[in-house]
């Protein structure tokens, strides 16, 4: 794992391609006795690279333009345009957020409100090609560079101010904090270790939470040492508003509170005798010693007595429904009226009164002084006091300098160009997202269980290339998707295929391009895109489909109204008592963000078929798609069929397909909707070739 990356020489004279990737791949063909498939045709390649880089298929006009462009760099021009498109960030942010376990809600997650600003930050970072080391550093420390202190002219050192927007990068760490049953679960540091170690180190340190790692040299001590890096973190809620907005909001709040207070006077007066009677009854039922404590004024109670009083609080709590039960009907009527008046007065909302907030993390100086311990079974309430741990991490050098802070020391080590794990894990992910599978198959586990990479020299060369190109992810994307290997067809001639299937049936050595089902978000975007109804606005809160995530509550996510946004913005998360992730995402294998997910399952199931056949979403999309076809074809069915194919499969129909479609339509305009439905349900629609 930790073998330093030595830049291997590019194999010579094995290919005519100038792209070193192809040389490494071709060298492997040679040793494995493989022949590659032919290059894919232009339109297949175009759809492939669009779906890959931006997640939206090319428009008919873009298809035409690409076909007409016969210049030698026509494809490279497309790639550069797509990489420059702001939709590229949306597409790749979604990949990263799977790995970094983004969730809009997760069972008491404190950072739920405003967590989408972290997603927006990731999208922007990718779009501006923030170098990978800075991308990671910002999410760990809130600073993208390693310059954290500055020197005054008179020799005083002070902290450099962070870039304002980098506070959103801290969503990665804040996301782990949660309060359940009124208690902080202390999960933030544990989730931080799990996410950070798998995502950036390619190590499954998580197993060592309860026992020494069975397969890798990671001890339980390593896990808790790494956890100690994050132990001092606490959540800080930041209000995101201009000073004017804050002051205006405060005024509104004053006004509402005044009205509310006035409305509450008669209500409280009405309720008081009933409440007192219920309360006194309950106090009378208490054991005598407890009763004595309860009857004391709070300040007269000792600490021990206060604890007893607190324990009995739920017993003495008088809920509104109990009061309503004991009220005579006429009083109850009056009560309801008063209550309505109070509700109308408003002013009960939080003190932030609707201003946007974001939860970031910061180091708590008191917690920083506390010792960290190994926890039995990872339970924060069972520290093993005889096993204190100092901050650290697996493979850390000795004598770490923590003067800049614990996480800072770790992140400097992690993101250093010399760290072989860091670049290898990163380029392998990019490779996986372009080619379907990483060179190292288990992209979050480079340990002993993960097996050997399929092409170690290529992996190392790419890692050194990432460092050499100052961690530019876009340059690596470009390098990969402009390789001949990426441009291969997904099917080969009979002879090549037969030999290939025999020598390498899993296509481990990439003798052809894969055929793969689109992921959930791309299915969604393709449906909306064909029906001309895709809102591709970049950024903003998540939206939901169906009833998922509609339950309110303190930790409810913010939900946008529009339901035709890109799938990347579709709500995801988990709750023990309601559905958060919409059925659509679940059915098409999107993860709910509870665990870091380096690679999604790919299932093919009947509910997917039922969704495509019968759902309201497809019904609406088919209707809109048909209207579009009818309008844009000017009533010419041949043209409508042609356009339909281009909008869904990014290619014109073959003559046979055109005939089949026209035979189905039978010159009946009403059948265009059925035709639209057929296109959505054809296999080709949800596969990339």
């Amino acid at each position, binding site marked *: 794992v930790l073998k330093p990356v030595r830049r291997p020489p590019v194999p010579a004279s094995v290919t005519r391609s100038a792209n070193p990737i192809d040389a490494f791949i071709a060298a492997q063909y040679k040793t494995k006795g493989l022949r590659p498939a032919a290059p894919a045709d232009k339109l297949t390649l175009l759809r492939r690279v669009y779906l890959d880089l931006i997640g939206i298929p090319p428009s008919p006009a873009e298809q035409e333009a690409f076909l007409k462009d016969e210049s030698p760099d026509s494809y490279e021009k497309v790639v550069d345009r797509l990489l420059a498109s702001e939709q590229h960030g949306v597409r790749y942010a979604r990949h990263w957020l799977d790995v970094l376990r983004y969730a809009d809600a997760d069972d008491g997650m404190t950072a739920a409100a405003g967590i989408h600003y972290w997603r927006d930050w990731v999208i922007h970072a990718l779009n501006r090609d923030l170098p990978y080391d800075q991308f990671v550093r910002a999410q760990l420390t809130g600073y993208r560079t390693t310059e954290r202190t500055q020197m005054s002219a008179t020799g005083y050192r002070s902290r450099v101010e962070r870039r304002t927007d980098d506070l959103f990068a801290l969503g990665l760490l804040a996301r782990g904090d949660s309060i359940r049953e009124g208690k902080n679960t202390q999960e933030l540091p544990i989730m931080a270790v799990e996410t950070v170690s798998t995502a950036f180190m390619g190590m499954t340190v998580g197993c060592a939470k309860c026992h020494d790692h069975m*397969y890798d040299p990671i001890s339980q001590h390593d896990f808790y040492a790494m956890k100690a890096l994050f132990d001092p973190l606490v959540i800080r809620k930041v209000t995101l508003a201009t000073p004017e907005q804050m002051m205006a909001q405060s005024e509104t709040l004053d006004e509402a509170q005044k009205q509310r207070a006035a409305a509450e006077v008669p209500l409280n007066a009405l309720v008081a005798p009933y409440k007192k009677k219920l309360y006194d009854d309950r106090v009378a039922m208490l054991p005598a010693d407890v009763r004595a404590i309860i009857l004391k004024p709070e300040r007269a109670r000792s600490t021990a007595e206060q604890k007893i009083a607190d324990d009995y609080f739920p017993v003495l709590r008088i809920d509104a429904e109990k009061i309503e039960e004991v009220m005579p009907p006429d009083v109850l009527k009056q009560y309801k009226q008063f209550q309505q008046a109070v509700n109308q007065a408003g002013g009960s909302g939080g003190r932030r009164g609707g201003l946007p907030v974001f939860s970031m993390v910061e180091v708590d100086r008191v917690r920083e002084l506390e010792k960290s311990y190994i926890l039995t079974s990872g339970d924060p309430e069972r520290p093993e006091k005889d096993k204190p741990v100092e901050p650290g991490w697996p493979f850390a050098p000795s004598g770490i300098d923590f003067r800049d802070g614990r996480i800072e020391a770790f992140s400097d080590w992690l993101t250093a160009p010399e760290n072989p794990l860091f670049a290898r894990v990163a380029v392998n992910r990019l490779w996986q997202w372009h080619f379907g599978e990483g060179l190292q198959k288990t992209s979050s586990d480079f340990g002993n269980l993960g097996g050997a990479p399929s092409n170690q020299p290529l992996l190392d060369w790419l890692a050194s290339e990432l460092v050499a190109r100052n961690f530019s992810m876009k340059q690596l994307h470009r390098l990969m998707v402009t390789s001949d290997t990426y441009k291969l067809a997904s099917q080969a001639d009979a002879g090549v295929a037969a030999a290939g299937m025999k020598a390498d049936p899993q296509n481990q050595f990439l003798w052809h391009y894969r055929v793969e089902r689109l992921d959930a978000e791309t299915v969604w975007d393709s449906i909306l895109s064909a029906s001309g109804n895709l809102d591709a606005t970049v950024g903003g809160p998540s939206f939901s489909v169906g009833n998922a995530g509609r339950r309110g509550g303190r930790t409810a996510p913010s939900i946008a109204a529009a339901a035709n946004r890109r799938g990347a913005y579709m709500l995801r998360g988990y709750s023990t008592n309601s559905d958060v992730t919409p059925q659509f995402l679940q059915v098409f294998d999107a993860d709910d963000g509870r665990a870091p997910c*380096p690679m999604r399952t790919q299932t093919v199931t009947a*509910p997917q078929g039922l969704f495509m056949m019968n759902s309201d979403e497809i019904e609406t999309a088919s209707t809109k798609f048909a209207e579009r076809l009818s309008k844009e074809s000017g009533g010419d069915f041949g043209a409508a069929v042609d356009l339909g194919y281009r909008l869904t499969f990014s290619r014109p129909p073959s003559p046979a397909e055109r005939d089949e479609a026209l035979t*189905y339509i039978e010159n009946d305009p009403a059948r265009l909707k059925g035709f639209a439905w057929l296109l959505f*349900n054809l296999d080709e629609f949800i596969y990339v070739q």
Partner: protein
Amino acid sequence: VIKEATKMDLNTIYPCGRVNRRGFLHQFGGGFFGAAMGAVWAQDGKIKDAIYGPHFQPKAKSVIFLFMCGGVSHIDTFDPKDNKWAGKLIDAIGFGDNVAEMRRPVIPILRTFTKYGQSGIPVSDWFPNVGGVIDEFAVVRSMWCNEGNHFPAVIETTTGHRGRQFDHPTLGAWVSYALGTANQNLPTFVNMGRASSPVQLTGGYLGATVSATPFQPGETPIPNLYPPKSSSPAERERQMRVLEEMNREFRERYAINSDIAARSQAYELAARMQLHAPEVVDFSKEPEHVKALYGIGEKETDAFGKQLLLARRLAENHVRFIQICHAGGGNGAWDAHGDMKTHEPLCRAVDKPIAGLIRDLKQRGMLDSTLVVFGSEFGRSPWSQNTTGRDHNPKGYTVLLAGGGVKGGTIHGATDDVGYKAVDHPHYYSDLHATVLHQMGLDYKKMEFNVFGRTMRLVEEGQGPIAEILT
């Protein structure tokens, strides 16, 4: 220490855990129906995983698991206590998951109990109809679990594990995974009614293919099952034919790709569902006297009665695990903190349908092969929150089992004389899981699954099947 990692399947190891370990599961699109075709293949000797059953001759073919969301008061229903403690303060614990030691007042049981049947098992006046069939039931009065609040307890009692550290599957998912489907046209594991928690439906690390399919009586038993109202059946049929035609070229091109082959199977499966699900939910051929048994047509019992009749029909169609959640949503309506009287309408809603289900299964000769379980996440405390309701009580409560090889007319175990702790033959909830597995022909010790190098089990603790209640 680095151990040799030779036995691991390298395709399996992703910490999100929801990745199917076995390629064949998704390649064959078994999906949906929990078609762990593995079970079939295991019989062919193609795979040898110990989990695939049956491990021995099963007593039951189906389980109908009735889960009362919020917590049924055992002492007001099937575990009577005299009221000698009523009005007194007893040593108790705090509210919800607050385990501080406190003294709290016991409130009286206001029910009257009648001894029913040959067994003379006492049942309260809230369950007269169940009383009428009590000779079919084993009443286990000594269940306990650890968690004292709803969602943690629901997770513990449905998955056998506390907390949410791993994505543990629910009991029905384990059964589906181990036994596979017995009916290619219907799901293997269905859930009716609103559950307390989505966890009750989850396949967890066993995969989405074995999670519960939501099912309901009425026109749309499964989401998206039927074409929208606007489309005509004739037109849809034609579309399906054209779809087949138009898919041909693509499917031939990628004939060797098993995923694409699975697509056509998935659509065929969907079509078979469309055909068979309506037959299952069509009650028109059920005689009136059968519907009356379930209380269908009576206001209070109609909804639950229909679910139970549908449950019987699903069992007839070899659906393996039918879970019915009653009064779910929020903490669950059975959560009677304020006043025990809130139990009354709930008892009325389920009493007659449950008795009807037992009688109906019996008259069809299905009771012997259908295991019916009645329970909830925990019971209720003898004391109150200084109200007329009862708090949560995980330390001692009752579950009922009937059919499927259960010894009817049995009382097993006991709580202390106030109804707080299980004292005689206490059974951790996992023993109930082990019992259900056993009746389905599954050895709980073989219910293991490797996730990420770690062996996960449904049953980690306890004593195994409750032998005393089995024939």
